């Protein structure tokens, strides 16, 4: 499907929804129109909960507060000042301003570098409680527990309010839908999936989260403003924890991560609650609660995904699906040499590590690490398991990791910079265990890896993905190009490794840190990737630091070997020197691959693994 066609389909669906909204009052009774106007506005807030929770992975209980910001701005201005068009605009601006201010504080507290997902949930849980207390203590200004009512507002008919609320919801849903389907929307999922990998791909995830949070706050505030202007009453419950949690429940019921699910979840539950609370004043909450428990137990992903799965399941029973490779949406291309945008080279050496130490409490993992490496050098880091190799890699890629010493990368001192800033200086790090985005496809993973260089569009999906030559080589060598539309979690272990390596190469790093890049690959594939690495070092002047256990592989590709043992550098020299050394033979190398004999028995206590 072409981009134009996809977008026009979305717009056509939006127009259809608008038509339904405009036809609504002609088929519904006045009571329903009244109730649904409120439900439509609540649904817009549920939409923001889904954006934050379903896509970005931030479970939030405090979206009610932003709704209340908009509602109370209208209530306070219209009560304490005259209702004029100017004041109406002022109230809207104040509502949005208050929501942005609150969201900025919450975002700063919840998403700073190093905050865990729990922070956001706890802070958004506290937020509505604080807001409600503030409204209670406002005396006659905020109306305390009874809120504000009886203020003048826009003179619109019931139908007009319904249309306004409906159009607002359709517009916001369409907008949100286009964004989550776009390339930028994949970025949200990537952050939810694996924030660490995002940071090591040079993406400032904290900033991204705060931006989405601010946008959601604005949507909530506008919905609240329309609500107050229409209902002509505001109460502290609007900011409350109960409403905030109801939003989460509607989202879960409808199906999080679907946008439409939470919207319909909010509409149906809120509308039915209004109906049932009339007919069954005492048991309706029990009914809602029971339904919620049943749905979550039977369909943990919510109602909408269940409805979509139903025909698929029924058809699936009739004919078992064969393995059909979906055609890839994105075509890979090799980036022109002129378009490459590696980090600027600074004045210092490619990599200089001086006096670096890393301690965990009383445990010293690294101590007095000193070495330099030039651009174009391929240095292998070998050493027994537990010698501190991975820790050293981590110290070079994240300024906050080391306990002492300085590190210069690509000519820049990394100071205490977080991983994403180290990437900007030219660092690329591949982890020991394949670290990719499990639910995203191969093509999407590669796109996220390029997001730092080519800003993903907020509404379009790229059809073409230009990658640096080295990344393309790895992809072609391992056959990843035939699996572009395969979700990463279905890849074999070796292919995941290859995918992560291509993602790191897509960053166009100047200093490449590779922690066992070829583990899980066959000897042939290893040698091919080795050739690509040599090429990167020799022709493009990259400085490569590689952790590797296969001494044959090390001998094949590296120009120099550093031996780490018990957190210290014990040898630094040419491949021949190191491999032939007594120390390496003693603490590291085995009897040689061919030498593993059938009758080898464990020599208990004889060959200690260095601690």
């Amino acid at each position, binding site marked *: 499907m072409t981009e134009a066609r996809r977008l026009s389909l979305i717009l056509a669906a939006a127009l259809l929804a608008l038509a339904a909204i405009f036809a609504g009052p002609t088929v519904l009774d006045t009571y329903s129109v009244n109730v649904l106007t409120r439900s439509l506005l609540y649904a817009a807030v549920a939409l923001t909960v889904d954006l934050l929770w379903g896509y970005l992975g931030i479970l939030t209980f405090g979206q009610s507060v932003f709704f209340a910001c908009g509602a109370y701005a209208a209530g306070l201005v219209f009560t304490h000042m005259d209702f004029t068009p100017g004041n109406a605009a002022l109230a809207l601006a104040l509502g949005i301003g208050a929501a942005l201010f609150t969201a900025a504080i919450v975002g700063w507290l919840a998403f700073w570098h190093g905050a865990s997902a729990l922070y956001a949930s706890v802070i958004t849980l506290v937020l509505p409680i604080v807001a409600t207390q503030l409204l209670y203590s406002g005396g006659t200004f905020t109306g305390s527990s009874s809120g504000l009512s009886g203020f003048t507002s826009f003179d619109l008919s019931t139908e007009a309010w319904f249309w306004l609320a409906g159009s607002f919801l359709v517009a916001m849903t369409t907008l949100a839908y286009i964004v989550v389907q776009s390339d930028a929307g994949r970025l949200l999922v990537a952050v939810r999936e694996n924030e660490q990998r995002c940071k090591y791909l040079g993406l400032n995830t904290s900033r991204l989260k705060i931006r989405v949070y601010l946008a959601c706050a604005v949507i909530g505030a506008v919905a609240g403003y329309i609500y107050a202007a229409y209902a002509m009453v505001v109460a502290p419950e609007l900011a409350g924890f109960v409403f905030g949690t109801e939003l989460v429940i509607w989202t879960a019921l409808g199906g999080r991560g679907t946008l439409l699910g939470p919207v319909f979840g909010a509409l149906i539950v809120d509308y039915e609650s209004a109906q049932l609370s009339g007919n069954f004043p005492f048991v309706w909450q029990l009914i809602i609660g029971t339904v919620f428990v049943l749905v979550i137990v039977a369909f943990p992903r919510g109602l909408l995904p269940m409805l979509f799965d139903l025909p698929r399941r029924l058809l699936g029973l009739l004919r*078992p*699906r*064969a*393995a*059909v490779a979906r055609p890839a949406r994105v075509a890979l291309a090799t980036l022109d040499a002129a378009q490459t945008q590696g980090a600027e080279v600074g004045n210092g050496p490619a990599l200089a590590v001086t006096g670096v130490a890393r301690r*965990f409490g009383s445990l010293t993992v690294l101590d007095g690490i000193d070495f330099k490496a030039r651009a174009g050098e391929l240095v292998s880091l*070998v*050493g*027994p*398991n*537990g*010698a*501190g*190799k*991975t820790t050293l890699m981590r110290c070079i890629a994240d300024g906050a990791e080391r306990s002492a010493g300085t590190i210069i990368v690509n000519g820049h001192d990394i100071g205490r910079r977080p991983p994403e800033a180290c990437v900007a200086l030219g660092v690329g790090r591949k982890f*020991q*265990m*394949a670290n990719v985005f499990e639910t995203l496809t191969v093509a999407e993973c590669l796109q996220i890896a390029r997001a730092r260089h080519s800003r993903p569009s907020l509404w379009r999906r790229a059809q073409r993905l230009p990658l640096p030559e080295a990344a393309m080589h790895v992809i072609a060598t*391992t056959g990843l190009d035939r699996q572009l539309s395969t979700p990463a979690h*279905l*890849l*074999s*272990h*070796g*292919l995941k490794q290859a995918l992560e390596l291509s993602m790191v190469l897509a960053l166009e790093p100047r200093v490449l840190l590779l*922690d*066992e890049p070829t*583990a*899980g*690959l*066959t*000897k*042939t*594939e290893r040698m091919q990737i080795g050739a690509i690495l040599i090429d990167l070092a020799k022709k493009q002047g990259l400085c490569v630091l590689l952790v590797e*256990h296969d*001494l044959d592989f090390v001998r094949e590709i590296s120009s120099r070997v550093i031996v780490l043992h018990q957190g210290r550098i014990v040898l630094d020299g040419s491949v021949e020197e190191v491999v032939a050394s007594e120390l390496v033979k003693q*603490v*590291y*190398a*085995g*009897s*040689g*691959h*061919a*030498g*593993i*004999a*059938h*009758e*080898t*028995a*464990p*020599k*208990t*206590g004889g*060959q*200690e*693994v*260095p*601690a």
Partner: protein
Amino acid sequence: MSMPPTSTPPTSMPRMSPHPAPALGVVGLSSGYAGAVVVREVNLAIGAGEILAVLGKNGMGKSTLLKAVMGFLPKMAGSVTIAGTEATRLSPHRVARLGVGYVAQEKALFQDLTVEENLKLAVRGRDFAAALAEVEASFPFLLQRLRQRAGTLSGGEQKMLLMARSLATGARLLLVDEITEGLQPSVIDRLAGVIRSARERHGTTMLLVEQHLPFALAVADRWAVLDRGEIAEAGASIETGARERVLKHLSV
């Protein structure tokens, strides 16, 4: 690449054990993920105390085979028996109770628990002192690290803990997924001895999925190569030319 014609798969591999039922019997097993068949009609019979190495290139279905046997993936066709007990439809914890240990490739340790707690959980209800003696025989350095959090061990050390833990459980059948990955050469040597010795002492049956060919051939009695989910070739490790026969399948 040459492959035997698909019409004549090695339907039943010769058994070395005199026991009536194989320690692991796999007949016509097909498995995979939604919409993708990864393992096709695989037949295997491993006698008690036998070690079989499953080799093959990336993405050929080696790990999928282990996950299907263990019950982590649905079986689309075929059956699995463990020491004569029908295990085709059992969930992973029931398979484990039949005495099957699974050494997964990733995320297999409790990262926030200590080395000791990891071991204790695995040997649940059995003699912990005997389990520690088993650890001493395999990777004694772990005994000095009993109080350390498993997540703070290095990648290779975690692999060693994983193997030591599996051997200490007293499992009758071990399914081991690429244990040599990330291990230094001398430890791989040692591991070969550890595995052979455990088999001598306890008669443990093992199914090893491996990329490290010399290790696999040194440790296993027999080997089988998986190619696109099917067993393409199989043989005994001591036969001359085994290495070449496997390599033929590994190189493109």
